[in-house]
């Protein structure tokens, strides 16, 4: 382990690097710019950070995999002050996935109730956005907006980590506009 740690000291981070001046925008440069924009907005509104509580209200777990990826060393959202909390009591944002199932409805409502104001709800993925392929089932209530007031929808099946990040920026824009009338 010592050699591994020592070598890590001299390695460049795998985290996507900042773009060279004048370079054409690639997905990596988009990512870094998105992150910067997000950081500035989050700072203006929330001080230094926002905290997200993820709620799976019936997803197939595809969205969870990509939300997880936000935390890996490649996307590393924590560098922008975004972090995921274990409890809704610590959250600013509820990130909800899945078509809301009848069996999860009460749990979702209780999670929302446990989140302190001001709070925002983001519906991530096509199921959360419009019930996806699971519409018209006796077991699903519908999209997240059928149960909670949704501030932002991030489409995709599942949304890529980069799309999730873009979505969070949009939310910040909306929230900033709301906070400074």
């Amino acid at each position, binding site marked *: *382990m010592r050699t*591994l*740690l020592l070598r890590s000291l001299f390695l460049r981070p*795998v985290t996507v690097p900042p773009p060279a001046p004048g370079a054409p925008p690639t997905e990596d440069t988009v990512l870094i710019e998105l992150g910067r924009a997000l950081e500035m907005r989050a700072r203006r509104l929330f001080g230094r950070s926002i905290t997200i509580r*993820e*709620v*799976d*209200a*019936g*997803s*197939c*777990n*595809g*969205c*969870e*995999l*990509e*939300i*997880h*990826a936000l*935390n*890996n*060393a*490649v*996307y590393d959202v924590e560098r922008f002050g975004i972090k*995921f909390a*274990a*409890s*809704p009591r610590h959250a600013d944002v509820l990130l909800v996935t*899945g*078509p809301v*199932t*009848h*069996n*999860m*409805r*009460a*749990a979702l409502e209780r*999670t929302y109730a446990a989140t302190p104001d001001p709070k925002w709800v983001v519906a991530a993925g096509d*199921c959360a956005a419009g019930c*996806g*392929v*699971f519409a*018209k*089932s*006796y*077991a*699903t209530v519908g999209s997240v907006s059928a149960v909670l007031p949704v501030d932002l929808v991030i489409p995709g*099946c*599942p949304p*890529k980590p980069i799309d999730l990040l873009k979505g969070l920026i949009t939310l910040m824009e909306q929230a900033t506009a709301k906070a400074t009338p």
Partner: protein
Amino acid sequence: MTAMSGRLAALLADRPAVAGHHPWPRYEIDHDTWLAVGQALGEGEGDLLGLWGEKDNVHLALRIHGQARPCVVSVRVKIADFPSIGRFHAPAIRLERAVRDLYGFAPLGMLDRRPWLDHGAWGVRAPLGSRPPAARRDPAAYDFLPVIGEGLHQIPVGPVHAGIIEPGHFRFHANGEIVARLEERLGYVHKGVDSLLTDVDLDRAGRVVARISGDSTVAYSFAYARAVEAALQFSPPPRAQVLRGVMAELERMANHFGDIGAICNDAAFSLIHAHCGIFRERVLAASERAFGHRLMMDRIVPGGCEDASPGAARSIQAMLDEVEKPFAEIVRLYDDTPSLQDRTCNTGVVGRALVEQWAAGGHVGRASGRNFDTRRDFPYPPYETAAFDVPVLEAGDVDARVWVRIREIGESIRLLKGWIADLPGGPTRAELPPREGVSEGIAMTEAFRGDVLVWVRIVDGRIARCHARDASWFQWPLLEAAIEGNIVADFPLCNKSFNCSYSGHDL
């Protein structure tokens, strides 16, 4: 055929199989024979592979020990009854409870009469049966099994969990730090998949099947495509067959990387987690470059698959070159860190007898000595002609499950290298033959967590009924056994080493 399995084989011998069911035979049997089959399964003569309902029928897929080919048996419900086999063969219990909740059939003599998927929130009972309206119940009202003893306390966890994971409820009874009993309550993400797979066209059913468990979307689409192709007696083009294997192995690698990292993270060893997260990301990025979707959702369809991009082989090869050596180093680190081994060795032990009884697939079975892999034992293209090892260990603990996954990654790399070096040319899609009347197909594929079974009945080119059974059905109950006598703090390790699917189970 072994002497032990004689009775089960004799029960089904000389029966005419239902016409048009491929590739395994299906037999229609009466209630007495159904009971006898259940008893024989309970005595260890075979493996239960699935049990599902349909209008007026209950089907059971099984593998008789000593016979190469599994089969399906079907029983007609009388009024609304069929004999419970859960009382003889415990792995059937939750499946019977699910059939009862969905169809309203009553398994006669069933021991556990609590609802399973029905939490009293649908507004109807038996949504795939007679659909009588039902008053909504408090979703939290559920009779957990009692635990009696001094100094016991309960720890309720979920359905909303602390991490970014799926919902389910775990009820621990603990004595201090030691878990006396864990009982699971699942069904929270029940989306009505069986109803969405009733009387629907092939494409739409395929899109639903691909979303039964997102982490295994390739394995599900693969099984669905093969079941449809079996029913229609059709074989996809050679290039599609190999590309399907490529996708399946990429999916396996990505999931094993993610889980190995997450298991170590649950032991607070975040270094491995960080590195495995990068490996996983590399696999997903290569998958996207090769197949246009990070999870390769909806790429495999009945009749073939989407073609790979022109640079697919090169980008997969580059990814393998990039991860293979660093991963070997991470494996060495895992092996050389006593503080980590202290958490994984002898933790969450599942005995061989249990995995054999439950026919638990994937790393759960193989880490406890069950030598089974669908790819080898019910071979299908492109594995029929491929050479690979199936790692089997005996210890049955978290460490063994980690090692099975580590070695499976090595085998996946080997398979991938062989395939991408020599990809066949030609088309990847072919038109399915039109077919009048009824045809039925069944297929099993090996997802990263174990075998996925898909059964279809096609009537005049439409899916009349399709059912998918996840490996998790036969793994979740073993998690309850694994944690018994362990400390509460080791539950995340045990849970992640299994990584059962909630969505795949809840349907």
